Structures are given as C-alpha cells and as structure tokens.
C-alpha cells in the first residue's frame, strides 16, 4: 500500500520527459540492428543446411538397397487418452534443431460501440512458434492476423481496416520466454477440481509449444483419470462442454481445439475460438 513516503519519493524523483517520439526513435534504432545479427545466423543456417543436403545425398547414394524397408513400424491408433499418452512417450526423440508448431485460429470478435451498432466477424490469426531444441537459443514466435474473415450472423462486419488490440489476439498458452529452455508455467498448476473445467485447465498445457511429449502425456493420464472427461474416437470433451480437443490417434498430438461461447445460445452457436494445430521438427527456421 502506498503511503506518504512513496509520495515524497515520487516528489523527489520527479517525472521527467519521456515522450513517445523519443521512444519510437529508440525502437527504430534498436530493431534496425537486429537484422544484421539475424542475417549472420542465416548465413550459418544456410551453410549448415547445404551440408545436411550434401551429406543426405551421399547417404542415399551409398545406402544398400536392403535398407529401403520402412524405418518405423506401423503404429496402432490410440483408442483412449491413456493410449495417446503412450504414443507420445514412445515417439522417436527428435534430432532436429527446432520444434515448429503452427496454429491456425478462427476467433469470434465483437466490437462494442456506444454511438453506433456493434460489429462482429470471425477473424483468422496465425501463430508460428519456432522453439530450438538446444538450450540458450532465442525462441521465435510470429503472430499475425491473416486478413481472412468470415461473417458473424446478426452483426455487420468489422471494418476492413480495423486493427486488433493485444488483448484480442488469441492467447493459447501461459508462458513467455525469450530463450530456451522454457517450461510451460501452467504445468505447475493443478487441474481444476470442477469436472466442467478440466479441459479449460488443461488447454494451455497441451497447446503450449514448450510442453514436452512426456509432460503432455502426464496431462493426458491425469485427464483420463478425471470424472466427466470422455474420449470419442480422438475427440476429448469434459462435463462443461465448452472446451474440446481432437487428438490425432496416430501421433497423440492435439490437432484441433475448440472453445464454445460460454453461453451456447449466443452468437448463433459460433465457437469463440477454433484452432488447428500442426507439429513438426525442422533444422531450419525463418530469420
């Protein structure tokens, strides 16, 4: 709680000019330097990629024909959350440099206006997360509105030029990290006791690019043991019916996440959030 001492300190250390123009100039100077560093990394990455291509070519050329057999055994599709957990735990450990997770998101956005009619659209966003597998490296996350929109029944569409506030951008996980290693912070929180909120509590854990397969598998097992959580051919729901996941039965990864409106009758039953997710390993990422 602030008191007279804080007022005195504020008076002694009076606010001095810090105008936006000054900061904008600083920002411009700072982020003009960054590409120089990135371009150096790009050269290194390009050289590494070239080396990988050459070595791969040699390996293919010199490989005996008998080794053309499939490298992995066919996987039995998961028929429960526990089996999906096992798939994740037994998945081949990556040797690639980056985990790339791509999220394609449709989010329902309504802008309230005091002086005119409210407007709304279903807006597409994309998030690309590039998380290095090595420690001490920078994490890149790119967020953008794609410009694609769908009409929302009952509302005139959002103006084409409207920009979205940070608070409107979808937040799919809880943690911000600059460099690896990074741990998804929601993993340290228990799942809600309420059976209707189990998936709400688990969503950041299973969508975060920082959650490891082992951590995700543990969450699946916790959900499997929770009353009210159901598996139906890869689709997972809880007693609340607001949140649902679809898990790829052949990989165990979440490939779709849907959050319905809290009031299912509002906005014509259009979900609040609908997310498609793809997971891959890569040795290169955009600079």
């Amino acid at each position, binding site marked *: 709680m602030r008191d007279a*001492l804080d007022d005195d*300190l504020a008076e002694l250390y009076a606010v001095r000019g810090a105008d936006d123009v000054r900061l904008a100039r*600083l920002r411009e100077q700072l982020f003009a330097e960054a590409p120089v560093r990135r371009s150096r990394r790009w050269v290194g990455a390009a050289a590494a990629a070239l080396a990988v291509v050459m070595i791969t070519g040699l390996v293919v050329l010199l490989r005996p024909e008998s080794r053309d057999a499939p490298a992995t055994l066919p996987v039995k599709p998961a028929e429960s959350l526990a089996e999906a957990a096992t798939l994740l735990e037994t998945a081949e450990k990556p040797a690639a440099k980056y985990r790339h997770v791509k999220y394609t998101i449709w989010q329902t956005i309504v802008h309230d206006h005091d002086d005119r009619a409210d407007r709304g659209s279903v807006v597409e966003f994309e998030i690309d997360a590039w998380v290095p597998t090595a420690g001490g490296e920078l994490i890149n996350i790119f967020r953008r509105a794609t410009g694609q929109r769908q009409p929302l029944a009952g509302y005139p569409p959002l103006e084409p030029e409207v920009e979205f506030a940070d608070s409107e951008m979808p937040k799919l996980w809880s943690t911000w990290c*600059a460099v690896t290693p990074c741990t998804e912070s929601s993993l340290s929180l228990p799942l809600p006791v309420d059976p209707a909120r189990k998936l709400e509590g688990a969503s950041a854990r299973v969508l975060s690019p920082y959650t490891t397969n082992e951590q995700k598998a543990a969450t699946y097992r916790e959900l499997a043991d929770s009353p009210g959580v159901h598996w139906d051919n890869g689709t997972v729901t809880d007693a609340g019916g607001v949140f649902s996941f679809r898990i790829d039965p052949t990989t165990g990864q979440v490939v779709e996440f849907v959050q319905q409106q809290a009031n299912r009758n509002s906005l014509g039953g259009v979900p609040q959030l609908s997310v498609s997710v793809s997971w891959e390993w890569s040795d290169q990422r955009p600079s």
Partner: protein
Amino acid sequence: MFAELFDEHAHPLHRYLARRVGVDVADDLVSETFLAAMRGERSYDPERGSVVGWLYGIATNLLRGHAKREARLLRTAERYGVDLGVAESLEHTVIARVDSRSHLRRIARELARMADADRDLVLLVSLAGLSVQEAAEALDLNPGTARSRLHRLRAKLKEVEHA
C-alpha cells in the same frame, strides 16, 4: 518478439530510469537493456521469475554504472531542497533555488548514503511499481530477504522524513 517486449515494457522502464538519472541517460540505458536482452547476456529463466523482474534486473545492473551520478544529484537535491530534475539542471547553472521542503532534503541525504542495492530495492518498488517479488527477482535476492530489508529501509526513511 523483442519488439512486442519493447512495446509493452519500454515506456514504464524509461520513465523509471529517467526519474533516477535523467532522460538522456535513460535513453541509453533502455537501448542497452533491450540489446542485452536480445543478445541473451542475462538469459531469461521462467522458473526464476517474471519477465518484468528479468528486464528490470538487466536495467538495474546497467544503472549501477551511473550510481555516482545519482548520488551526486541526491546530494544536490539535499543541499538545495529540490527534486532530482532541478538538481540536474542546477549542475549546469549557478542559480540555486532554496526550497523549504526540508523533509525531502533529509530523504535525499539518506538515499545518497544508502548502498546502491538498497536504494535500488526501495525505488524499484516505490517508483517503478514492481512487486517485492519482482524487485527481488531483478536484484537476485531471496523474496523473504527482500521483504524484510525493504521494511527496514522504509522504516529508516520514514524516521528521517518525520525527524
């Protein structure tokens, strides 16, 4: 990513630094803070605390290079009973404005005498608005230690405030 971080934190960080050592030095310190963050000179560990604590920790380390300047400004503020902004301008002029705010003089004197780390703790919480937990992360202190130290330092400042 760092541009987002800048947009979110640069303004309050600059305001805090400017209040302590002046606008021109604050410009440099904000730039150096974000450059150090981008270069991973002090890596961010989410298990050790918040992004705010991490950034202000980098800034506080850089600010230490200007501790003598701040102490000098505090002594000028004490001598003439003025705030640090006026104290800074007084360094360039011979005109001294005598002020009757004697309690500010005493606080300035006490702050000037404080160890740099103690002054940082008091001001990160009071001026920058960080929680004790965040200030402890910035200064690499145990939160319990930071809490008790802050209590002691503020008690001392209140004592001279009302002396």
